[in-house]
């Protein structure tokens, strides 16, 4: 028995559309036949773009949503039939900093949630002090959360999720909006928890984070898992292609699409980072990268794209996603 077991999980939502009195119902499939398990002492990354189904997966595991079909078990407890037992074994950090009481201090928030998780008061007091110190909030523990910075709130929200030392931890974008130092600290704590034997399910937008932390990664898109393996194995699957990264200004998607006409090119995606200058990155997966660069540049320059840098890069998990879907993660 693994701490998290998800079998053939599907989740549909019914949404109403249209003006009053003319509303029509539509069924949206958020998850379709999702299956995976997370072992003890494993970090399992769920990687996918916005709306792919990452948060729905987490909310179903943590009993906030009921599956349409399929089965989810947390430490052997069915999340529908034994939801209270499942919740006792779960630590959950949902996205955002509005998961705390802003009119309570950091310490008061933790004391409140410690009681809800049936922690012994003396043990809770010590644990709270240890965790506050761990994330550098001990000196601000009596400050109301409304006076915390976003980073401080996210750190507090994170330690709230691990307060009762749950065997299973679900982290939904735990480092979003954090400064690099705080993000590094949170990642270190997550790695320590893995060493202590916690089973950790992590969703993230950040490819580097998923790559660095995860023992295995599931790539999810449109509610389906489209690949699942250790990050190194996933990256190896795209190694047969070279990844060419072209930094440019005035990127015209129609010109970029012309690159698909080059026989050795498998995938092309462009990401605009600066809308005013149409500046950004064009990523090309090619079987013959070095030899096709001159032809690529010729097409781009002729189309008015101002190329500033070209390099052959090592494949990342983003490239895995591109090769699987033909789209960038942030599309």
């Amino acid at each position, binding site marked *: 028995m693994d701490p998290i077991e998800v079998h053939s999980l599907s989740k549909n939502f019914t949404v109403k559309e249209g003006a009053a009195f003319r509303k029509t119902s539509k069924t949206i499939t958020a998850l379709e036949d999702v299956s995976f398990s997370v072992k003890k002492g494993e970090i399992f990354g769920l990687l996918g773009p916005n709306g792919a189904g990452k948060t729905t997966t987490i909310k179903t595991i943590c009993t906030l949503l009921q599956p349409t079909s399929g089965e989810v078990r947390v430490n052997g407890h069915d999340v529908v039939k034994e939801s209270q037992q499942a919740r006792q074994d779960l630590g959950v950090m949902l996205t955002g900093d*509005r998961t705390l009481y802003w009119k309570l201090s950091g310490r008061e928030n933790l004391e409140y949630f410690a009681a*809800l998780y049936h922690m012994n008061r003396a043990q809770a007091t010590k644990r709270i002090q240890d965790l506050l110190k761990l994330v550098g909030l001990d000196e601000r523990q009596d400050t109301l959360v409304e006076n915390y910075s976003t980073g401080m709130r996210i750190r507090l929200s994170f330690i709230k999720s691990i307060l009762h030392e749950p065997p299973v931890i679900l982290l939904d974008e735990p480092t979003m909006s954090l400064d690099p130092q705080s993000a590094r600290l949170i990642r270190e704590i997550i790695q320590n928890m893995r060493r202590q034997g916690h089973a950790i399910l992590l969703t993230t937008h950040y490819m580097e984070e998923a790559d660095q932390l995860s023992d295995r990664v599931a790539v999810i898109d449109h509610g389906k898992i489209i690949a699942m393996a250790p990050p190194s194995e996933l990256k190896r699957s795209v190694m047969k292609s070279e990844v060419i990264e072209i930094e440019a200004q005035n990127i015209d998607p129609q010109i970029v699409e012309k690159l698909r006409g080059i026989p050795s090119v498998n995938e092309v995606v462009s990401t605009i980072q600066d809308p005013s200058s149409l500046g950004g990155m064009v990523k090309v997966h090619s079987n013959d990268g070095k030899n096709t660069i001159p032809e690529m540049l010729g097409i781009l320059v002729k189309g008015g794209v101002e190329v500033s840098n070209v390099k052959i890069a090592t494949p990342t998990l983003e490239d895995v996603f591109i090769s699987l879907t033909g789209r960038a993660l942030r599309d």
Partner: protein
Amino acid sequence: MTSISNTFDPLRAIFRKQLRHLIRYPGEMVFVFIIPYLLTSLVIAMGTSVAGPQAFANFAAQTGSNLNPFVFLIIGAGVWMVSWVVMEGIGTLLREEQMKGTLEQNFLAPINRFLLLVGTALSQIVITSLLFAGVVGVSVLVLAPQAALGLLVSYGILMIGLIPLFGIGFVFAALVVRFKEPYAFTQAANILFGVLTGTFYNVTFLPVWVRTISAAIPQTIVIQDMRLSIYSINGIVGGFGSILVLLAMAIVYPTLGYYFFKQFERRAKITGDLSKF
């Protein structure tokens, strides 16, 4: 941990959290405290302007009560306010938690939902008891000091009468989770209850069919019995039957209300309503 501390520690934590919030957002308490005085003054002014110098005598003749009209009316206004806080409180507090994003955090905890609702309600009991003591107690002691003993009995009646209101509060909480418009439901219900329960008059004035509905609302009994007990400590003797009715309501209403809430919670898990604003 024992099951007793498993129950009471979360309950205590919810209670403390609510109290801290009330202390740190004091404006609402001040507002709620002055409302009964304003409402009572309004009714007295209206009555006096319509009935002229004979207003108080007419009032005694019509109601059959020798209570000071201000005391008579402020009991109704006080119970109405307390009921408002309890019924609306449970629903609106859940809505506020939903808006703040903390409702999901509470629902993630391994505690029974009943504890969550009761914990929220308990804090309302303390607050409303204090407010009621301030509003009605002061008025009775100043205007009808001989009724001090009856005042104590009346608090007992109020405490019993608050329990069935939690059941109605649970229904509001369920509607809030589903429709996310707490004020539309609770304010309509509060005004309706104000009319049906004899807040500013005896329900005997109401048509028979309306009185039948009034009898099913706990505040009707609470207001009547409190007026009786304050008027005369012996007056309540005749009302023991109604206290038994209140006790029965105290069992039936919260049970039904919680069942109703659980049905809506189950639906919210299917639709994802908990995190929708």
